[in-house]
């Protein structure tokens, strides 16, 4: 009959309208954002952060600059720490990431041989000033290894297993090599990567 389809459509919308009052859980899908948030997927990624074990001084990063050179938009800036005699240490003195430039590709996480940089779940980072506020320094980037375990348990398990296997393999060699830490061990030397606790 003429107009029957119109009536059927009207009933559909009427039912949806009533459903929002009668059965809000089924009827309304809105997540009222600032108050409620959807749980993020584990593999969600946006901006990188640095990992430390225990205290912020035990930073895992060895300032090897692999992530800096791999970063497609070149948003990472690293200066390795130097001791009193000017020898390069396996530790970053400056580690800046410009969040305004970072494009959330996650390549830094992929290339890092020391499992020290990972993509974060923090997305409420809007700031008033693009130049200063979004240039994130080392202190602000540092987050404990337990935080990573919390946001990405699956990856945590995988990486822990990998690290455990590596350190088990490296253990017999480690005492021999540890004192022989040459000053010429450049920032890009990846040996001993399995024991970054000293680095």
């Amino acid at each position: 009959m003429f107009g029957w389809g119109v009536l059927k459509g009207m009933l559909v919308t009427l039912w949806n309208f009533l459903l929002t009052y009668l059965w809000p859980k089924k009827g309304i899908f809105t997540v009222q954002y600032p108050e409620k948030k959807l749980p993020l997927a584990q593999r969600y990624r946006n901006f990188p952060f640095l990992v430390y074990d225990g205290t912020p001084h035990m930073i895992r990063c060895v300032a090897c600059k692999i992530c800096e050179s791999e970063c497609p938009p070149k948003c990472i800036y690293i200066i390795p720490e130097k001791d009193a005699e000017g020898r390069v240490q396996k530790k970053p003195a400056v580690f800046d990431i410009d969040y305004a430039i970072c494009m959330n590709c996650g390549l830094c996480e992929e290339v890092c041989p020391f499992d020290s940089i990972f993509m974060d779940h923090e997305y409420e980072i809007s700031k008033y000033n693009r130049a200063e506020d979004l240039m994130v320094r080392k202190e602000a980037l540092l987050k404990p290894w337990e935080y990573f375990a919390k946001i990405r348990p699956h990856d945590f398990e995988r990486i822990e297993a990998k690290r455990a296997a590596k350190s088990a393999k490296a253990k017999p060699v480690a005492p021999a090599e540890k004192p022989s830490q040459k000053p010429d061990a450049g920032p890009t030397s990846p040996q001993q990567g399995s024991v970054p606790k000293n680095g």
Partner: protein
Amino acid sequence: MAETIDQIFVLAKDRFLDLLGIVLPDWIILLVRILISIAVLLAVAPVVMMYMTWLERKVLGRIQNRYGPNRVGIFGLLQPIADGIKMLTKEDIVPKNADQVIHFLAPVVIVIAPLLVLAVLPFGRNMIAADLNVGLLFFLGVSTFGVIALFMGSWASRNKYSLLGGMRAFAQMISYEIPMVLSVVPVILVTSSLSTAAIVEAQLGWKWFIFTPWGGFAALVFFLCGVAEVNRTPFDLPEAESEIVAGFHTEYSGMKFALFYMAEFISTFAISGLAVTLFLGGWDGPAFLPSWFWFGLKTFILILIMIWFRGTLPRFRVDQLMGFAWKVFLPFTLANIFIAALWALLPYPKNFIADTIGITVILTLLQIFNRKETPKKRKYLYAN
């Protein structure tokens, strides 16, 4: 008591005028009596419009499985005010090549018509700003006037989309004006009056015209034409977002833009009010609630139906729109005048039968003449 609440606005007005009468001469009282009605209408109409936008957004949201505005104030009730402030503080852009004067005048003129027609709507018993003896004619005449303002805006913008929207508006409004007026003619014929107050009085005591065979269909046609007159979905071709940006108000911003919306919403209210007056018994209703409440309730329901339309139906094509007016509504309303005449002429059981037969015949004929014509498959004699 019920009588007092029913007449509370009228009594308040009289009381106020009595008090003024102590100090002022009679001729000023006469002026004030008129001015009060005008002031009340001018104050109420924008508020009605503001909360209609709120209602529309709420209902549309619910239809689309979300909450609508609920941030500003409780249930988002302050949202229209926030929107008003936003609109007022926005930059007012006038295109460089626009006709400055007409571009400015169009949004001003467009709100005049919907505000004027409110004067002849009976909002309740004795609550009519101007009981003209040609009230209905006044309403139909003045509401058409809005299309001129609309075309002014579209022409003065010097924008192709605006002009297209204006052209569409003109074609649509003129097409739908005819069945709209013709669907009202039976009411005039039966009540033999053009005064809206007299039309309501003729329907008192549940003799609403929508319950008569001719009135039911006339109400449907009138309401649909009314939806087309105020450019609402599914008849919103003049401002079709997905086709011509925003149609006639493409080049408007800030408060001028808001005025176009104001005109649209107030005329929505006015058309709903007139449909209630003509077919749904106006302010007639069970006496335990005041008459103005019944008028408001019925108008509210009609507005809700319009919003429901908007949440459901897709836009017409231009040919469908024109075909609907000229092929369906126009012949039906013409026949409906005759059917209503039969109703008025014959005694009770006979007129009901006559009307039923008449409506069945005209609907069948419309069905037959409007059936879909599928061309026969062409035979190619020589191609092979």
